[in-house]
Structures are given as C-alpha cells and as structure tokens.
C-alpha cells in the first residue's frame, strides 16, 4: 500500500510538468498577447497608444523575451511561490487571487452541502419507493432542475430576490459591506445573497445526484443479499443503511476528485451572470484578455487540485470498498 502511495505521488510530478507546458502553449495560441488586447480596448474607446509606448510596455512586462524563456521564468517562479504578475490588475498574481479564494470556498462548500443534503434523502426515498407518486413527482422536479439552463434560472431568481426581498442584484453582499471587516450585518447580507447562487449552481448537481443514487440503489436492492437480510429479519432501516446504501455510495466518493477543482472554477458562467466575487469570473476574464500569468496560475492550480482530488478519491474508494483495494496479490 505504501509503495502504491509513493508511486502515485511521484507520477503526479511529471503529469503536472506536462500540464504546465500545455497550459502555457494553449494560452499563447491565440494571436497577440495581453498588450494587443489592452490596446484594442483603449482604441475602441477612442484613446490611442503610440508604438513606442507599446514597445516600452512590452519590455516592462517581459513580453519581449522568447517564449521558452517566459515559460521557464514562470515555472521556476512557481516553485518558489511566485506566480508571476497580473497585467490586468497590475499586481502580483497571489495578491489578486487572495480575497476571492475564500468566497469561492464559501460558495462551493455551501453548494456541495446543499447538493448532498437535498439529494441524499430524496435519492434514497425514490429508490425505496420506486414508481410511487412521490417518486414520480420528485423525479419530475429533478429533471426540471437538470434541464433548466443555469444562467436562466440565475436571472429569474435574481429578479425575484430583488423585487420581492429587495436584495441588491448580483454579488455576494450588499455593496456597503464589501470593504468592511466581518460583522453580523455582513454575515446576514452574505446569507441573503448566497442562496441564489447555491440554488442555481446546486440544482443540476442535485438532480444528477438523485438519479445516480436512485439507480445504484435500485440495482443493489434487487440483489440476493438484500433478500437474505430481509428474510433473516433485519430491521428495514438497518438493512438499507448497512448494505445496499454503502454499495451505492461509490459514485459520491468518486466524485470527490471532481469536487476539488470545482471549488475554484465551479460554475464560472453562473458566477459571471450573478457577478459573484469568486475566482471563476476572474479566470474567465484573465483568459480572454490573455493575462497569461494569472490565467496560467489558475489553470495550474486547477490541474493540481484535479490530480490531488483523483488521488484522494482513489484512496477513499479503496478504504470504502474492499473490491477496489490494490494489494500485493492483485498486481499482475
């Protein structure tokens, strides 16, 4: 097992290196660089920039160096915790991302919590009461959640929240709290705003989760050991929780690998629509304006989380399900 762990960790390093090279190349693929985007924006407003100034800026931002040189500067910087410089914000990348990370975590964890709290009981209920009215009704609602485009739901909820509850549109708190330290008022304001994104981002995930849990559980419920257990006289609830439900949990655990990166990039589009101060919209604008170090660092961070998340979910699966365990004898 230890051997396995070490091997998995070591494999991560070359994976990440390859990813970093790919990220850098892909960001460089579109024509131009940050400065061309910047100049285009200025000029669309009727401002103009002289050629000399552009060359000067290019030199100051280090964009005049060759691509490999830029890549290795970035790569070695990352080893030392220096993620480069964001052109758009005119600040080191770490300063730019800092504040937003916390709020991203808040939104994502609230969403995950919401998803699980809602999906779990409903999924179990639907499976155990298959083809009942309640099952049909909940399935119907689930499909609605799955089929409604997120951004549309976001706009509708924003409108309702604004008209009926007077919540300010977009963002995660009322504007006057933004620059303030945490207080009770701020906390309430965050809660007032949080439900919209949580609901919007959560719906499709919840619906999906309900369906998967229901299907898995249905598979298990048909099996012999359940019948045996029932025949043996095990209490209903105990039987359900102890055996088939445990088996049906695998997809939840396998999902952890995807959850981690989602915490950062999760629902970028919804966040843009709702104007959330999270990392998703920031990554999107960074990619669009070719703010390469900011975008690159984001993508790098995402890939790191994906790799780590996969590792963790593999481990958890192994703990949970003896069939998956990789031990001495199983190796060919």
């Amino acid at each position, binding site marked *: 097992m230890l051997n396995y762990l070490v091997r998995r960790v070591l494999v991560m390093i070359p994976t990440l290196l390859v990813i970093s090279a790919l990220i850098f190349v892909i960001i460089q693929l579109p*024509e131009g660089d940050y400065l061309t985007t910047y100049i285009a924006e200025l000029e669309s407003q009727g*401002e103009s920039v002289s050629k*000399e100034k552009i060359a*000067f800026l290019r030199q100051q931002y280090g964009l005049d160096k060759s691509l490999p040189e830029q890549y290795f500067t970035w790569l070695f910087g990352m080893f030392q915790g220096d993620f480069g410089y964001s052109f758009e*914000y005119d600040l080191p990348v770490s300063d730019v991302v800092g*504040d937003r990370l916390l709020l991203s975590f808040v939104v994502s964890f609230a969403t995950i919590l919401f998803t699980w709290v809602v999906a779990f009981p409903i999924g179990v209920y639907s499976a155990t009461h298959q083809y009942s009215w309640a099952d049909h009704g909940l399935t119907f609602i689930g499909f609605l959640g799955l089929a409604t485009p997120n951004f549309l739901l976001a706009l509708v909820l924003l409108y309702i929240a604004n008209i009926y509850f007077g919540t300010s*549109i*977009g963002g995660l708190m009322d504007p006057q709290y933004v620059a303030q330290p945490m207080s009770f008022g701020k906390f309430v304001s965050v809660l007032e705003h949080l439900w919209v994104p949580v609901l919007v981002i959560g719906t499709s995930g919840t619906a999906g989760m309900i369906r998967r849990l229901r299907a898995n559980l249905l598979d298990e419920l048909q099996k012999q050991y359940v019948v045996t257990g029932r025949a043996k006289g095990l209490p209903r609830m105990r039987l359900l929780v102890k055996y088939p439900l445990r088996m049906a949990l695998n997809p939840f655990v396998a999902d952890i690998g995807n959850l981690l990166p989602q915490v950062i990039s999760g629902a970028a589009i919804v966040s843009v629509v709702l104007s959330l101060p999270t990392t998703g919209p920031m990554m999107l604008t960074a990619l669009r304006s070719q703010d390469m170090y900011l975008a690159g660092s984001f993508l790098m961070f995402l890939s790191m989380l994906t790799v780590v998340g996969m590792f963790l979910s593999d481990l958890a699966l192994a703990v949970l399900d003896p069939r998956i365990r990789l031990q001495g004898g199983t190796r060919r």
Partner: protein
Amino acid sequence: MKRLGARAGVLLLCGVIAAGPGSGEAQATGYTGSPSLVGPVARGELPLVDARLPENPAMVKLSAQGKLPGRHGGTLRLLMGRTKDVRLMVVYGYARLVGYDESYQIRPDILERIDVVDDKEFTLHLRRGHRWSDGRPFTSEDFRYYWEDTANNPDLSPFGAPNILMVNGKPPTVEIIDDVTVRYRWDAPNPFFLPKLAGTRPLFIYSPAHYLKQFHAKYADARMLAEHVEKAGVRNWAALHNRMDRPYKNNNPDLPSLQPWVNSTRGPSEHFVFVRNSFFHRVDENGLQLPYIDTVVMNIAAGKLIAAKTGAGESDLQARHLSFSDYTFLKKGERRSDNRVHLWQTTKGSHIALYPNMNAEDDAWRKLIRDVRFRRALSMAIDRHELNQVIYYGLATEGNNSVHERSPLYRAEYRKRWAHFDLRAANALLDDMGLTRRDRDGIRQLPDGRAMVVVVETAGEDTEQTDVLELIHDSWLDLGIKLFSKPMQREVFRNRVFAGKTLFAVWGGLENGVPTADMSPRELAPTNQQHLQWPKWGQYFQTKGKTGEAVDMPAPKELLALSNEWVRAPNQKAREAIWHRMLATHADQVYTLGLIAGVPQPVVVNRHLRNVPEKGVYNWEPGAHFGFYRPDTFWFDNAKPIDTQQARR
C-alpha cells in the same frame, strides 16, 4: 505658507457654521469648505479652507451656465464593469490644465492663465498657492520634474518625450520662469498641444515631484530605493517609478492628485471609495469649495448586470454599460427607484459604419472597391430609414459618417450625399461599371466570373451589428450582391483588416463628430492604421514609410496633403476652409458607408442629483463623458449637512 495653521480661527469658524445651517465653514474672505471637513480642520489635521484654496481659485459661475448653485454633502454611487475603470474618475473629474467649456472652446482650468503666441509659444501661469491633494504646493517644480526627470530620462522614457510634444521631430524648449510660470516653446506651431492637455485622456506634463522623488534614482537614497524595488517585485527602479506615477490609471491611492475626488482604495477590490480633494481649486459663485459631493463610491459588477442593477436603483449616475436597447427596461425602473432616465446625444460620426477596404488583397475586389461608383451604389442601396425605424424606434439620424449638427462645420449635404435609398440609381451605377453578368439567383458576377458575395466582418461584441447587417443584406440582394456577416474575435478582426484579408469591416464612425475648425482633421485623412478603410496607407504614414503602402490614389493623397496643410494654417479661417474641403471630399467619395448617427445614450440620474442636464452630449473625446458637465458641480438636494454641533465639542 501664510494662512496655514491659523488655529485661532477654528473656534470662530465653528460658530459661523452653527449659525448657517447647510453651509460649511465660512471665512471673512467668503469661502466655505465642506462640513465633512470641519472635524479634521478642528483637530488641526487640515488647514482652513482659505489656506486650502489657491489665492485665486477658479470661480465657476453656475447660474450663468443655467445650473443651480448647490450645497455640500452626499455620496454618489457609480457602477463599473472592471477594476481598471477607476481611471474613469480622472475622466469624470475632468480637472485639466486647460479644458473644454460648453461651446468646445479651450479655457484655463488648473492654470490661472495661458498666453499663446502663434501656437508656438505657450506660457502657463499656475495659481499661486495651489496645492496637491496631500496639501503640498503645486508649483513649476512639478513641471520641471516631469520634463527633465521623467520625459527626458533615458530609463523612464527610453523613447524620449511623447510624440505629441515633438514638432518636426524636435522637442520644445521648456523654461521654468518662476514658481508659477512655465513656458513651452517650439520653432513651428504645435496645434495639438492644448487639445491634448484638455483631452479626456490628457497628457500630464506635470507630476507630483515631492512624492515621486522617493522612487527616482537621481533623488532617492539608493538603499531605500532598492528596498522599494524589492518589495514591489519589479525589474528596476524605472518600472517602479512608472508604476507609481500613473495619474490616469488612478490605481495608486498614495499618488497626490489635482482631481476633485481622490482614490482611497488600493485594488484589487469590488468597492472603490473616492474622497473629496480638500485642496481642489474650484469654488462656486457663493464661495463654496467644489466638489459639492463628499464621496464617490464605485462598485464593480459584471458589465452585463449593470443595466439590471441600475434599473433597481443601485447607481446614482450611470451611462457606461447601458445601451439604447436597455431604455425601456430602465424607464420601467423609474417607477420603483429614485431614478430618472434621460436620453443624451452621442456624437460619433456614425453609430455604425461599413468600411470597404481600399487595401484589400483580392485584386478583383480591390479594383471594385476603389471605384467610387461601386461605393456610391452600395451606399444608395442601404435603406437607412428602415434601419432607423426597425432598430432605433426612429430616434436616430440617418445619413453618412460625417459631422453633427452641433458642430460649426456641419452642412446638410455632408450627411445626405449619396445616402438616400435609390435602388434604381444604384443598379444603374453597377451596370455602368460593366458588372452586368448575373448568375441564376440574380447575383452579379465579378469580371473574373466569381459571384459577388461579400463577407462583412464584425468584431462580434453585440448582436446589434449583426441585426443591422441582416437588414442591409435584403436591400443589397436587390442590387445583385449577396452579403454574409461574420463575427470574430476583436484582435483577429483587426489583424485581418490590417493585412487586407477583409473586404468589408463594421465599426463605429468618426470618433469626433462635433469638431471645431481648431481640432485636427487627421481622422479624415489616411493617417492611422486604425482607419479600417485604408489601414495600409495609415500604417505607412504612422511608421514614416517603414511599413504599409504609400497612398496611390489622387483623392486620398489630397486629403493627406490637406491634413498636413491644416497644421501650418495661419488662422482659423484657413483651417475651416481645409475642414470643409476634406468633409466635402469624404461625402462625395463615400470612403465609409455611414448608416445611422446620434443613437441616443440612456443616462440614468438620481432624482435628487442636481445640475445633470436632461439633454446632453455623451462623447469620449472631446467630452470626457460626464466630465464635460463638471460632476464637481453636481449636488444632492437631499444631502444632510453633517451635524456641526458635534464638531464644536
């Protein structure tokens, strides 16, 4: 300085405030500061209002401009799409050495006086006693520092002084005459100098020397400077200095400023607070120091949400990120918020214009595009009236890409020539060119047998352009030309136009639709790569012949010559004559196909915010959006004066 630190006056001062509700501190000289500053003044953190103002402040006669003198106080909320938009406070603030007044004449503002001799010699007289927002004196030293230590420092400006300061490749002689007098002199006229100083994005020929010297290798202690550089994580001291010295970007809260409101928030943030510059140099006719409004708060939200937020009353003054299509929604918002929606004029030469590329790579097409009959036929085959009715509720002006009625250079023929809808005449023109062969679908054929299928490329940022093109598609089909529109990413779009791969491009029309004869007519001549109708000629001009192609057609050549002649023109009359010749050529030659102009810009204003005109002009250059109307003179009629009794204790 003389009246500075007159602590004895504080008590007296508070007495006066308590007596006059709504008025701030008052003095024998009759100047009044904002009540919000009474506290700092009483604590001795700020000098009295008399000492904060220059000896001879800029007096704004509001009644004479049809505005109401107001009172201090209140917070103005704005919405912006990106963190970078903090620079718009320099635009809205619009404190310039010289600035445009309401009739587009350049008048001194920060300067007390400016003496101009033949556009060659400019003597700038500062206001004695004028101070930066941190209270340090603003003197000719700040001009010397800019010219000698910034603009001509090889590390800070490796490419020398800005182009606009060069006349025939030669820099000006800059003389510092005394504390408050600076002279710029060239051998030949520089008519661009003053407009640039008055510009929306102005040229700053002064910088706060007392602040910046700590980042300048010539003045700063080497060890301290190295520490600063290290801390900021930049390459060298020059990069650090440049980063600190960004009066336009406005992202350094420590940089002293002369604007009415000063940034107090260090980014990144979603919430920027701008506080009043207590040393601002303007006063109203009652002696109240401007700006009236104490604080400006700028909230950053996604651009697409700004219309919704504005409609819900989350902004007090908003035009940015609102477009005409939001008008009905915003109007509905009037009912549930304190907002009023006005429609302001926009003054681009044309809201949307088609640019046939005279430098197109394709030989057959280029030949056609260069034939004026072809361009005229295309222009006459556009039903501008229909466009106006269908997309702009008939509120816009139909016609060419030319100057507006507000401009003294306006003539109806410039807007109307070849812009009436006449398919018969248009078809006749094309037949006359020998393009008579048509295929089975009725599409005309090029001389080499290809069908006349035009791809019009757009930067694809909104659907409006595609909607407009869809309508043009129908009428061009009657001309025997098939139109496709192709949206693409903006940089790709521009590069394709520059390279001549694009036949037709869509973009806004002339930037300045309200020029006076004293403004440069360069936009009408092939002088810039950004002119999508002749990018290669423009590039040739800009790079002084290193890249691009020389102009090889008589009419554009003449335009170029006229534009050069304008620079040397001895007086306004001559300049006006040149303008008219260029405008006439443009209208007759149809270099750009203007469609619709004066599409109204919705401006949402809080009901309590006074002095914002109902009918205004919304333009970038000249105009500075709201800056033209001097937001420092806007005031809230419901602003509560700060409790001055508190300050007394």
